[in-house]
């Protein structure tokens, strides 16, 4: 298990096969063990067609799993879904509301149907910045407004777990930022947010933990910081007056050192502070020490290389790498 502690979502050996029109079978999710710890934002990443939406639909009981078990807040789903659904707010792909009703009316209708307090409607409309367009018909909404309304709808239940499947699809940068803020705000209030995306940059900034899947299989999961550490070796840029001497000293520690002009690029140092320490002991003073930014994107691309749609199916976990993201 990748995460210790309480889990909001936990799946084991989850498998889903779709039957194609020509009768052949297509494995969308294969043996997926997904763990989402309680609290914080959990990114659920994977290229297009990797099975993110399929997994979420199984969790919500919209489609049946062929194999495997799923638990949400420790309740087996879909068997006990009705009991936990009150704690879960979800949007899957592009949610569809009633086109002839205004945004507000749609929410009031939903609130009535799920037994939520109708006074919450105005609150959640404000939360997603839709208050001044709430009286317009849903069918006149832009993509971004529809997405916001969907998020507002999930907030009606004041759920403990929010599942957002590609919530920022079709949003402009300002909209993306707003949604991100909403997600952070929710996490800040102690909620668990599972957000799926194929756009890394979007999730990297909000997610505490991530799961990366490709072709229906888990290829890496853990804390973002750990994944960044394991994805590409951590590189630190070091600026010193005498790079030659400093380079030899650092190489003597078993680290890889490259010259970059007057500076050094050091790979493999467990902690940048150690570099300063070693050099200072020899009277060499560091005038620059910056970690070279490794973004999730490059980790993601590396991990999922050759696993996008239309490529050859990979062997079992080709990279053999699973970040052991301990919560300690």
């Amino acid at each position, binding site marked *: 298990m990748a995460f210790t502690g309480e889990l909001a979502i936990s799946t084991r050996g989850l498998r889903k096969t779709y039957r194609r029109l020509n009768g052949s079978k297509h494995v969308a999710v294969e043996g997926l063990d997904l763990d989402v710890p309680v609290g914080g934002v959990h990114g659920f990443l994977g290229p297009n067609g990797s099975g993110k939406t399929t997994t979420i*639909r199984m969790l*919500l*009981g*919209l*489609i*049946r799993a062929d194999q495997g078990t799923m638990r949400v807040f420790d309740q087996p789903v*879909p068997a006990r*879904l*009705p009991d936990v*659904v009150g704690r879960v707010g*979800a*949007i*899957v*792909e*592009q*949610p*569809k*509301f*009633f*086109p*002839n*009703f205004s945004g507000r009316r749609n929410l009031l*209708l*939903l609130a*009535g*149907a*799920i*037994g939520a307090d109708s006074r919450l409607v105005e609150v959640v409309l404000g939360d997603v910045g839709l208050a001044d367009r709430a009286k317009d018909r849903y069918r006149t909404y832009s993509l971004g407004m529809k997405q916001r309304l*969907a998020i507002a*709808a999930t907030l009606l239940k004041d759920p403990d777990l929010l599942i957002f499947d590609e919530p920022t699809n079709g949003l402009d940068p300002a909209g993306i930022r707003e949604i991100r803020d909403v997600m952070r705000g929710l996490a800040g209030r102690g909620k668990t947010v599972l957000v799926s995306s194929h756009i890394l940059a979007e999730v990297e900034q909000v997610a505490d933990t991530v799961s990366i899947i490709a072709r229906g299989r888990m290829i890496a999961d853990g804390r973002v910081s750990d994944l960044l550490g394991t994805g590409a070796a951590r590189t630190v840029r070091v600026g010193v007056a005498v790079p030659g001497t400093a380079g030899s000293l650092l190489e003597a520690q078993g680290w890889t050192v490259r010259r970059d002009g007057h500076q050094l690029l050091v790979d493999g140092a467990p902690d940048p502070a150690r570099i300063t320490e070693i050099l200072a002991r020899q009277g060499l003073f560091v005038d620059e020490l910056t970690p070279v930014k490794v973004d999730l994107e490059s980790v993601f691309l590396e991990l999922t290389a050759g696993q996008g749609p239309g490529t050859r199916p990979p062997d079992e976990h080709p990279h053999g790498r699973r970040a052991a993201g301990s919560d300690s």
Partner: protein
Amino acid sequence: MRPLLRAELARTRARSFVWFVAILAAVAGLGFVAMAWDDTRPPTAAQVRAAQDEFARAQAEWDRTGDDRVAQCREVEEQTREEHPDADLLCDQLAPVVEQFLPYQSQLEELGVQRLEPVTVLVVLAMLAIGVSLVSTDFATGAMSTWLTFAPRRGRVFASKACAVLVAGLPIGVLVVGTVAGGIVAVTTWNGAFGEPGSWFWQEYLGLAARQISAGLWAGLVGVGLAFALRHAAAVAGLAVWWVAATESALPVLLPVARGATLSTNLVAWTTGGTSYDVPECVPDPSTVTGEVCQDVAHVVSTAQGGLVLLAVALVVLGTGLLVFRLRDVT
């Protein structure tokens, strides 16, 4: 369940298709009102003039030959009375009257039921379409999947749809059947053909209207069940066309006994208070050319039997719909 139903009803009310079909059916029903109006239309001035001309000519003829014809009549009457002492040939009523030359004006009592009966088809088709659309639209737009993420108990979602079609179907049925039933009474009265309908007439007429409304509700339920089972409106339409062609039309031709099992027979039996159909039954008879003698035997389908068959069909279709809905993926 109650909150779901309330939401479902609000959505049903807001569907323009529902309104469109309901109004279309009511307007189409006006055709039967127009027929009743035509049946009971009082003679036009031209018809009256023509009748008077005819009458004048007949009267002139009568003035010439009337006495002879009455005498002739009496003679025949005398002869007939030798065998049948009570015979009365109405020889004193042979003189022409003007009504003879005017088109016959039916009375409400004679035509009301006959003109109202075909409305069954209208109500059934309209409610079927509405029932199907309530469900298939949600599948087509993806609203079903969104709805289920909020209300995952599929049995309840199914039940709320089924109840919504009943609650919405009642006013629609009343609108369509009421338009025609009320319209027929109104136009016959307007045409002065209201007559003096007996209580038996009202019983039959209003009973027919009520059972037509119930047949509409039945069709709405069947529509909901079929749509849950097949999801696409086009698939339901295809099935309906196939059913009408194969089971309702072709099968009884090939197998006359099957007529008793068709939906049309049972619908007619339920709405009109029983019906019957003929099945030729043959016994071997070597003395004839074909080697057998055939005779049509009437089979009666009672109101209750028709109602029970419809009920059974609705239960089977709803059960299938529920089963499929509970088991199949919704994406």
